[in-house]
C-alpha cells in the first residue's frame, strides 16, 4: 500500500481544507462545502479524502464557479469508507481535497445534459455558472425526492428541464426511466452535444440509444461514477 499512499500524497497535491457547511438535502444525500481556492471550469471534478489511509474518491463540483466555495453532492454508501464519515463532518472539520481538474467541460454551445441521481452535480455547476442557455436538462431518479435543486432548475429552465421518475408519479414529471423518455422523444439534433453523467448502465444505455438515433458518438461525452 505504500506506493498508493505516496500517490495520495503527491496526486494533484491533496491539501487540507476546512468544512464550511454540510447539509442533508434529501434522505441520505449531502451537499458539503469548503472555501474555493483558485478557479475551476464547470463540470470539473475534485478528489476528496478524510485521511491518508485510503486513496481519495472523485466527485464533480456542484456549484457555480463564482460562488467562492466548492460544493460536492454525495450519497452515503453504507459499506463505504469515505461517505459515512463525510456525512458526519461539521463546519471546522478538515478534509483533504485536490484542486478541481478534468475535462468534462460545459460551454455555451447547444447541448443536452442527461443525468441520473447525483449525476446532476456537474450540470448544476454549469447551470449556476451561467451556461444553461440552449440546454435541455433531463434528470432521472427513482423517487420524487431525488430531484435535487428542482425548484430553481424548474424556475430558470422551464420546459427545458425534464424530470423522469421511474417509481413514483407526479404532475409535470415523466413517469419512467430516462431511456423510456428518450425513446418516446423525437427531436435529437445531430449537431448538439450530449453530456451524460451517472451510473455506468444508464450512460451505456443512453449512449447506445443516441447512437441508434443517428447522433455521432463524437458528440457524446460521458462521465461515469466508478
Amino acid at each position: 500500500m505504500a506506493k498508493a499512499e505516496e500517490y495520495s500524497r503527491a496526486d494533484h497535491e491533496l491539501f487540507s481544507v476546512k468544512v464550511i457547511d454540510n447539509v442533508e438535502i434529501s434522505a441520505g444525500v449531502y451537499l458539503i462545502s469548503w472555501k474555493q481556492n483558485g478557479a475551476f471550469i464547470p463540470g470539473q471534478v475534485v478528489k476528496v479524502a478524510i485521511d491518508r489511509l485510503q486513496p481519495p474518491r472523485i466527485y464533480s463540483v456542484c456549484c457555480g464557479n463564482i460562488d467562492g466555495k466548492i460544493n460536492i453532492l454525495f450519497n452515503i454508501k453504507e459499506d463505504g469508507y469515505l461517505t459515512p464519515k463525510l456525512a458526519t463532518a461539521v463546519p471546522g472539520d478538515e478534509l483533504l481535497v485536490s484542486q478541481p481538474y478534468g475535462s468534462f467541460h460545459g460551454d455555451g454551445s447547444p447541448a443536452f445534459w442527461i443525468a441520473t441521481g447525483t449525476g446532476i452535480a456537474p450540470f448544476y455547476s454549469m447551470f449556476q455558472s451561467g451556461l444553461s442557455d440552449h440546454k435541455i436538462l433531463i434528470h432521472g431518479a427513482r423517487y420524487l425526492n431525488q430531484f435535487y435543486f428542482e425548484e430553481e432548475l424548474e424556475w430558470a429552465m422551464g420546459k427545458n428541464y425534464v424530470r423522469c421518475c421511474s417509481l413514483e408519479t407526479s404532475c409535470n414529471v415523466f413517469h419512467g426511466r430516462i431511456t423510456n423518455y428518450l425513446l418516446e422523444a423525437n427531436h435529437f439534433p445531430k449537431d448538439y452535444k450530449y453530456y451524460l453523467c451517472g451510473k455506468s448502465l444508464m450512460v451505456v444505455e443512453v449512449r447506445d440509444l443516441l447512437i441508434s438515433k443517428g447522433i455521432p458518438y463524437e458528440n457524446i461525452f460521458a462521465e461515469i461514477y466508478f
Partner: protein
Amino acid sequence: MKDQLFGKDLNELQEISLALGLPKFTGKQLADWLYKKEISSVDEMSNLSKSARELLNKKYEFGISAPSKVQVSLDGTKKYLFPTSQNKFIETAMIPDDDRKTVCVSTQVGCKMGCLFCMTGKQGFEGQLTAGEIVNQIRSIKEYGDVSNIVYMGMGEPFDNLDAVLKSLDILTSEWGYAMSPRRITVSSIGIIPAMLRFLNESEAHLAISLHTPFDEERRKLMPVQIAYPIADVVREIKGWDFGRQRRVSFEYILFKGLNDTPLHIRELVKLLSGIRCRINLIRFHPVPGTPLESPDEETINHFRDQLNDKDIIATVRASRGQDIYAACGLLSTKELVGKEG
C-alpha cells in the same frame, strides 16, 4: 448458506482450523487439498480425521463449481460460461496455441467502466467476483493441469475489484497454493492509478494497460475513465516504477478504422511511451452491437505495426481467436442472461 473453503488463503484456512478446535497445521493440509490435489469434496480429504471432516462439512462447502456451458471454436478456442453466486453468468476463455494454453479469466459480473467498444459494459455492473470465483475459472475447466498462462482480461475491470484479484494472485502463486510463476500471469486494466500502484507493489504479475489512443479527447470518447485517470498520468506513474528485468508492462491497442490508426497516432504513441521498455499488442476490433466503430483492413493494421517497429517500439498484432463462438467478451453471458430472464 455455507461459506466456501475454495478461495481462502493460508491464513484464513489456519484461522478456520483453530476456530473449529483443530490444530493450526490443518490449515496447511486444507490448502494442499484445495489447491494441489484434484478433489471436489471435504469427504475426500483423507488425511483429516472423520470428526474434522464432519466439523468442516457442517459450516463449509468445498466451493468449486463446474461451467454450465462450453462452446468450442473451429480454431480450438473454448469459451466457458460459469454461473456465479449472484445468479448471473461470467465467461472464461481457453486459448490453445502450440504447446501453450492460456486462460482468460473474468473478475466482475459486468463492468462499470462503460468503454464504447466493449460488450461487457452493456450489461452494466452486476457484482464483484470473489477470489474463489476467479480461481475456480482455472480449476474447473477441462484443461486445468495443462494451463500455461493466465490473463486477467475477461469480463470486468480487475483494478475495480483489487482485493479479490490480489487474493486470487496470492492463491495462484504462493507455495501453499498453485505455486505458479507470476511471470505467467498478466493483469490488464484501463488504468485506475491508485489501484494500479497497489497492484505493482503487492504482486509480481505482469501489467497490461488498455491504451487505445494517445490523445486525451479521443480517449475520453472511447473510455470515460480518461476523465478521472488520464493516460498521460497512468504512463507517468509507470515510468516511475522499477519493473526489474523480468516483469513486463504492455499496452493494449484496439485499432479502429479512421479513428486511431493514423501516422499522427504513431507519432504521439512514440512520444508517450518513450523511456518505457514495453510492447504494444495491436488488436483487431470485432464489432459489437450498437457500436459505430469498425476495424481497419489488414494492410492498415500491418502498416501500423511496421511503423511502430520502425520507431523501436515492439508491436505485434494479436491473432483473432474464437470468432465463431461470440469472441467479443460479454456476448455469451449477455445472451445467456437475456435467455434466462426471457
